[in-house]
């Protein structure tokens, strides 16, 4: 039990995928303009990441390893992630067309979100068990979502600020992301 809590704390706060591993930066900057979109993206990513890490673990242990074809890991995992994203996309399209429109291109882009593939491959490298792998995926997704939502809140406020002309838009967002990463370094050392 402690093991799982540690994995969660580690992936959400200490080794946050966005702020310390710098994975998944593209949706982090792309869908953080509004808190509501960020929330929708969070649900989608947590769902995809948890399932992707579980299923890719099964694929690794049940197919790739027994057949000795680990060199196909990348293509296999990408296929799993892509079908999961396709599924999520269909569900969101049917249940919430507004969210579907708001997420736009970034929804199919979860497929190539390095965060998701990163989790699946790290699970193999860290030799996690099935439950550990799923927890790791869920934690990474929640960590990603947390900073995405926090960042979206900040950007909504920055939009109302009197930012110098040369820093308006992307520059100030990147500076804020950097400062946020600086702040989150405070968690370093809590869990290795």
């Amino acid at each position, binding site marked *: 039990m402690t093991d799982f809590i540690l994995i969660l704390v580690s992936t959400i706060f200490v080794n946050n995928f966005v702020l310390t591993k710098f994975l998944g930066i593209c949706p982090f900057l792309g869908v953080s303009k509004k*808190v509501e979109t960020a929330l929708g993206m969070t649900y989608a990513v947590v769902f995809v990441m948890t399932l992707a890490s579980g299923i890719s673990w099964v694929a690794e242990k049940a197919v790739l390893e027994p057949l000795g074809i680990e060199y196909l890991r990348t293509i296999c995992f990408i296929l799993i992630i892509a079908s999961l994203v396709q599924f999520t996309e269909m569900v969101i399209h049917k249940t919430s067309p507004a969210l579907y429109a708001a997420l736009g291109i970034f929804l199919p882009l979860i497929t190539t979100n390095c965060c998701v593939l990163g989790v699946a491959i790290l699970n193999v490298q860290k030799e996690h068990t099935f439950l550990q792998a799923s927890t790791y995926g869920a934690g990474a997704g929640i960590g990603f979502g947390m900073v995405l*939502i*926090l*960042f979206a*809140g*900040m950007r*909504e*406020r*920055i939009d109302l*600020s*009197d*930012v*110098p002309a040369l*820093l308006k838009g992307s520059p*100030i967002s990147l*500076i*804020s992301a950097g*400062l*946020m990463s*600086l*702040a*989150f*370094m*405070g*968690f*370093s*050392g*809590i869990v290795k």
Partner: protein
Amino acid sequence: MTIPSRLTVSDTLSFWTLETERAMPPSSLSFTSSPHVHGGDSIPRIMHTVILALMPATLLSILVFGWPALWVIVITTLTAVVTEHLLVKLRLRPSPVGDLSAALTGLLLALTLPPHAPWWICVVGGIFAILLGKQVYGGLGYNMFNPALIARVFLLISFPVEMTTWPHPVGLLGEEALAFGDAVALIFTGHMAPGEVMDAISSATPLGQYRMEVSLGKTVQEALGGNYAFSYFNATGGLVAGSLGETSALLLAAGGIFLLKKRIITWHIPLSMLAGCLIPAVLFWLIDGTKYPDPIFHLITGGLVLGAFFMATDMVTSPVTPLGQIIFGASCGLLTYIIRTWGGYPEGISFAIVIMNTAVPLLDQYTRPVIYGKTRKNA
């Protein structure tokens, strides 16, 4: 008819009567929008009061750590003010230096620095605080992070050695104290005279000592007793190694209460922050008193009091609503305890506050009070 710059209550009332009775032709009426009764608060006045509240602790730090401390405070404050002036001038706007906010930022940053910080730490910190902490967002009122703290975090990560060299408090005039000339040499060149090494008089902060020794398997009592000889009396009074302003809990608390009395800050953030740190401290202390120090230790060491009264309460980077402030304060306190106890930075309060700064826009948005007559759902 000229518009009086400030109307009193009676002015407003007579004004109203005149208007309703239509005793005067409409053209001679003047209208001003509310509020007509103004408390007289202004940014310079608030900043001035906060600086005043910090003065006892600042003066004590100079008294305890000697001339170098004075230099650190002067250089940091001056850098902050000059940076602010130049940056705003670059935007072709009137210089806001007179509102004292840059001076306060500089002073707060200086109070988080080690007493013998070299001059370039002070300068880099001052520039970072104003440039990246404040002016890139558009200046006072727009910054996302507490400028002084984000600069301290930056310095701590970038220059860990300089930022964690804590001299033993030798006093301003005592026998071991540094002469004025030596202090200048120390800050600007890094050494006093050829051959003399600073390490001779450095020591660990109480929190650093506790973390280091306990991680080596000792008990709290062993870590703080023995050669280290931690004393509650000295720690409360500020006579221990540490950052300039982190040391005297007593004078900082006095300054904080002064701010409360002056209604510059409200009780929500300081109280919830102290509770957020001390309640877990009590719990863990009761569970295992040999591994976790008592709550009094947590209260009087490090920057908890400075953070709770002066840093977390920064008007720009803390939530507006009372509920938001309580959540904000309690989370700051809890994070402080977590980082102090398990994290890699024993003096973790600055991290706790800047981490919570990122959540302020959301806290403001989701703790909005409900307008009278509406429910939360259809507000």
